[in-house]
């Protein structure tokens, strides 16, 4: 609607002017960039670069594998296409590492999570004695992995620890070193993983159980439900969001097991106890095979991200 008075209307300030006036722009320029810049340079770029480095043979010398080295008259790295992927996928140590990593995830899901759930159901009520149990069960989680690994290298040392004790009890002639025996080395690591992380999952479940309304459980009790029935028909179904989260952590954490492996076996004996990350460290980083290590990294990244995306959009949808 136009009238004769229109020429004296005052235009409302544009969004831009409003931002300038109340200091929003200044905040935008100062508050957000540090996070974005640091995250981009040290998280996003290295992830992308793993993809760019993967088709090269490169020792890490020089700025980039595709940069020209004036001294030698050639590039710093050599393009070898998919060879790095072929090499690791055909490498028996890699196949073992991959199998071991799957085993970690399987043990976490099949053994560790049920233990954590059972214990959570036992001690979720707030009483003084339960608080003590919670504190003790949580203890392994807050200990550094490396220290945990060292402690268990002692416990499982054939000359000193539990293993000597057992082999003495059974009257065995020779000392048994589980960490130096082929199937046992990785089984030991698996056991320590359960020992170390069940408390973490238990705490997630306890928080979930405590948020379930008491009235519902009391109503069920009045209707004659037993402890087990309450757990199966009320508590565990209502705990499903917490369980999906602990499954997520188990898989993404299981993919990255490394710290425990180094002090316990360092991947041995004869590369039988590597995980994906310890394989990457040993064959990529230590030998400075940048391209090769990056290719393994791309594989690890792909497995992790595909799992995360699929999981978020199926199991965790709507949560």
């Amino acid at each position: 609607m136009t009238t004769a008075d229109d020429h004296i209307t005052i235009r409302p300030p544009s969004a831009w002017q409003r931002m300038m006036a109340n200091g929003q722009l200044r905040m935008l320029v100062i508050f957000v960039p540090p996070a974005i810049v640091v995250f981009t340079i040290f998280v996003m770029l290295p992830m992308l670069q793993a993809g760019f480095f993967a088709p090269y043979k490169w020792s890490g010398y020089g700025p980039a594998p595709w940069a020209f080295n004036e001294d030698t008259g050639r590039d710093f790295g050599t393009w070898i296409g998919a060879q790095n992927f072929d090499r690791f996928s055909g490498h028996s140590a890699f196949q073992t590492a991959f199998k071991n990593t799957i085993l970690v995830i399987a043990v976490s899901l099949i053994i560790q999570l049920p233990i954590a759930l059972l214990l959570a159901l036992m001690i979720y009520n707030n009483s003084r004695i339960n608080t003590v149990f919670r504190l003790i069960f949580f203890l392994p989680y807050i200990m550094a992995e490396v220290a945990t690994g060292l402690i268990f290298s002692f416990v499982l040392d054939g000359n000193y620890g539990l293993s000597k004790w057992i082999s003495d009890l059974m009257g065995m002639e020779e000392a048994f070193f589980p960490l130096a025996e082929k199937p046992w080395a990785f089984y030991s690591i698996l056991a320590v993983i359960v020992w170390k992380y069940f408390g973490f999952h238990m705490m997630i479940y306890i928080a979930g159980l405590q948020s379930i309304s008491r009235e519902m459980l009391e109503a069920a009790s009045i209707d004659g439900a037993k402890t087990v029935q309450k757990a199966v028909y009320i508590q565990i179904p209502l705990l499903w969001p917490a369980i999906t989260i602990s499954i997520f952590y188990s898989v993404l954490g299981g993919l990255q097991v490394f710290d425990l492996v180094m002090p316990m076996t360092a991947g041995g004996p004869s590369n039988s106890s590597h995980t994906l990350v310890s394989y990457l460290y040993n064959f990529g980083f230590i030998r400075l095979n940048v391209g090769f290590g990056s290719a393994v990294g791309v594989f690890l990244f792909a497995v992790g991200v595909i799992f995360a995306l699929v999981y978020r959009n199926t199991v965790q949808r709507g949560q």
Partner: protein
Amino acid sequence: MPTFGWRQATRIIVLMLVTFAILFPLSATVLGGFKTQGDLTTNPFLFPRNWHLEFYHGILVDPDFWRYLWNSLFISFVTTLITVIVASMAAFTFSHMRFFGSEYIFGYLLMGLMFPFAAAIIPLFIKVRDFGLVDTPWGVIVPQVAFGLAFSTLLFRTFFDELPRELFEAARVDGCGYARFYLSFTLPLSTPIIATVATFIFVGSWNNYLLPLIMLNSSENITWPLGMLQFQGEYIVEWNKILAFVTLSLAPAIVFFLAAQKYIVAGLTGGAVKG
């Protein structure tokens, strides 16, 4: 009306067994530091025949031991401080401003939550090397900050979103700018979430092994997990010394972390149950 039935009995037996499984290796570690090699061989788990203090003493007077702890403390403290500042500033902006693309930028940061960190360690090493930060504390601090940002920003933002809006509007009417509001209202009101994020980042940094392993190499600069493995390498079969070292380096952290347990658990569930 709790009757002491068989179910109650099983419950207690199970809890005691788990407690035993956890405390047994730990007590063996603490006690092992008081034993001679001979005692340790014949009696690895129980009380020492004679209590020897010299192994613990030897570590307490070892300047290397204190230097490892100091390096870890410095790296963890600075990592925590920077992460809290940078993440809370970003979260504050995301919480108070809707600008073009703001949700995309926030989503971009959150992508960090699903990356397996170890996948990029080699390019990360090259990046840190190109910045000239290898074998300096900053070579560990800056990547740690970067990898902690996704989680921290998410926790801060969830908390800031629940602070009362009226407060902000009232302050604006009185002429309080964003930066002032952030410093004198948001941060003081956010001590629980700051404690949660800070504890979480601190624990992660204190226990971190892979990143310092890649970035640090001189014995001047290494953190305690690396120092501990180096010590083990030197005294490879002298388990009593190694166990004393493990005990002494774990003890302060365990005391602190158990005291801060509330915040660790809040971090586990805050980022999780709502995510």
